[in-house]
């Protein structure tokens, strides 16, 4: 009994402490502090997301003064149309290629610019500039460079001694790879910074020990540095892969989805449909894209996390 009452006294005193703590918290951080951020989140994130789900099941369009529900009509007509799957496939190819190029370029730059010399610092700044540039500007500049009478062909012509007229953005097979590489180039600076941060956190004693054990540069990188970069790899691969699923601007400026629709990623299709005034259709498409990204994100991030746990 006494034990019981002692414990209940203890419990109630803990309860009082907790009570005071919560009161203190709510005094210092009243809930109303959350209102501005909550409002912005509500208006610009929650409501559009909810509406995205709702409007996909309606007949909202530029041609109709009223909006009414039409069940799965939009989904049925979308799946009947071959364009949906074609553009989803193009988007996946684009995302995978961008993730590859961005990470390869970024890792390469990080490794070569790791040492803190003046020249390296300058080079890091230079390679980071494309990240800050407008994606549309990047697209237009590269489009001009890669035109049949553009700078690249002129340069090649000068080197080879004859006129080069290659239409770099004219291949229905390879243009998607080329635009992915350019998107990868644009964002490589960001990947570089993250990989650099990862490299800087590696304990120098580990490297020293490996050097004493006689590891060469190649082994040092692949056996020690690269595995220890796992968290950076997770972040970079996940953001570049999933981020590119939402790509639009660079491709819009470079190819407008051409040649022959071979670079028409999903968002270009969504935009084209919206421009036709069939708003509910394009909303349905964004919903489908949202779901595809979600379906991809879970296994990709789970796999990369597991890989980290295994290594670290």
């Amino acid at each position, binding site marked *: 009994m006494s034990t019981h009452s002692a414990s209940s006294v203890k419990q109630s005193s803990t309860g009082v402490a907790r009570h005071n703590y919560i009161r203190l918290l709510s005094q210092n951080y009243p809930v109303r502090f959350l209102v501005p951020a909550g409002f912005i989140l509500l208006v610009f994130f929650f409501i559009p997301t909810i509406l995205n789900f709702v409007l996909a099941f309606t007949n909202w369009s530029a*041609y*109709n003064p009223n909006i009414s529900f039409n069940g799965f009509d939009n989904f049925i007509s979308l799946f009947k149309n*071959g364009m949906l799957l074609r553009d989803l496939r193009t988007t996946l190819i684009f995302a995978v290629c961008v993730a590859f190029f961005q990470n390869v370029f970024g890792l390469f730059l990080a490794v070569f610019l790791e040492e803190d010399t003046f020249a390296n610092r300058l080079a890091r700044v230079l390679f980071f500039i494309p990240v800050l540039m407008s994606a549309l500007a990047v697209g237009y500049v590269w489009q001009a460079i890669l035109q049949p009478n553009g700078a690249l062909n002129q340069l090649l012509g000068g080197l080879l001694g004859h006129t080069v007229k290659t239409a770099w953005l004219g291949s229905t097979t390879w243009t998607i790879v080329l635009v992915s590489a350019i998107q990868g180039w644009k964002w490589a600076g960001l990947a570089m910074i993250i990989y650099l941060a990862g490299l800087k956190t590696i304990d120098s004693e580990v490297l020293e020990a490996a050097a004493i054990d006689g590891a060469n540069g190649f082994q040092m990188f692949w056996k020690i540095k690269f595995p220890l970069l796992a968290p950076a790899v997770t972040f970079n691969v996940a953001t570049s892969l999933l981020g590119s699923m939402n790509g639009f601007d660079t491709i819009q400026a470079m190819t407008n989805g051409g040649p*022959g*629709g071979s670079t028409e990623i999903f968002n270009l299709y969504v935009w084209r449909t919206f421009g036709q005034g069939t708003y509910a259709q394009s909303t349905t498409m964004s919903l489908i894209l949202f779901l595809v990204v979600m379906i991809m994100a879970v296994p990709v991030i789970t796999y990369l996390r597991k890989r980290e746990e295994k290594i670290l």
Partner: protein
Amino acid sequence: MISGKWVGKGRVACAALIACATLLAGGCSNPTATQSNEDTSAAGYWPDQSTDLSGVNLTMWVSPNSKNLFEDVVASFNKKTGANLKISVVADVYVNNAQTKIATGDVPDLGVWQPTSSMLSGLVAQGKVQKLDNAPFIKNYKEGYADAAGMYKGSRYSLLFTAPSVLGVYYNKEVFEKAGIKEMPQNWDELLETAQTIKNNLPEGTNSPFYDMGGAQWGTQWAVQVQLAEAARDGLWDRVNSGKEKFTDSTIMDAITEYQSMINDLHLFNEDIGSATDVTEEQALLNGETAMIFGNLSLFLGVSAMANNDKATLDKKIGFFPISKEGTIATVVPEETNGLVAFKTGDSKREAASRQFLTYLMGDAYQDFINSQNTTSILTTAETPDTVPQALIDANDSIKNSVGSMQSLAIANPDFYVNLASMVNGTMTAQQAAQTTQDQFDEIAKAQGAEGF
């Protein structure tokens, strides 16, 4: 306290639910739609051109193609009336971007707009544009122009201020001469013969009889559309509009496969057709790298700009002839550079000021406008300047024997050119290009509530 916390959470959840319910209920009416009726014949609906507009701020949207069109006339309008009308360029693809802005509630006072029923239907359905019936300048249109464009379901919603674009063949006179072509083709078969003759006698510097732009895409539809002129006269687009005929049926399908065969079997087009653009097409015609293009007004204006708008050079080099399957019927496709709409902004003063600008443009300012644009006058009150290139005069003359294009006569304007560009690039078959276009047509027609879809 803990239960209090849950009450708090409950309140938030309740509020969120109420917010969603309100949104859903509100979602029953299109938030961007406004409805009203206006009496265009009422006194004062069309204000006098010189009515004072001090303190009235107006915005006009123009496309990159038309960004210099109204600079002078806007400046003189502002000076004359005291209004503050500003021009704002909306990036390409203009119509998509403008539609997107309008859908989000961003509406200007005036805007260039393709004056075709397919492009006006959305704006009218949402009650976004003012009616322009009974405008004082309509009686001044030269024959054929008053009804050539800008009408939707019997009412005028867009002002046609220059001759609508005409589809036909723009050709390089020097190449024709070198290849020994003296007679202009009088039907499709003769056009193919002409092309074959040029191909067999390719002058130095000329690479192909025809040129097209699979890269920029939009020009790919002209070669197909000109073949449909007779069918269009026989009611092709009415049948398509009611779902009785499809893009995949023989009329349109044959025109598509003919175009494909001209590229792949007869090799009459430029080798880089897949990636070529409007700019390279204009250059090729002017420089004689190609003999002919299936062109519209935009393309000719591009060529003209490259020749510094010099009449002598253009008359020496560039000619125009209309063509169709059986004869020489021209196909008319009004462009956004031909039409202006006045939007409903809810501010009656600004709406009247917009109408006043239209009256001024087609009134006191028209002669100066035509002179500065160096184009043909479509009003009896203004003279065509003698510096207008002959090819443009010929193209506009051919309107007398013309028929509307898909854009003018169909209720929807699907991305036909995108699919044709895919066909040109070999990523779609002719059948797929037609089917994809039809699918999109069905969607838009269904959204409009058209019968048969």
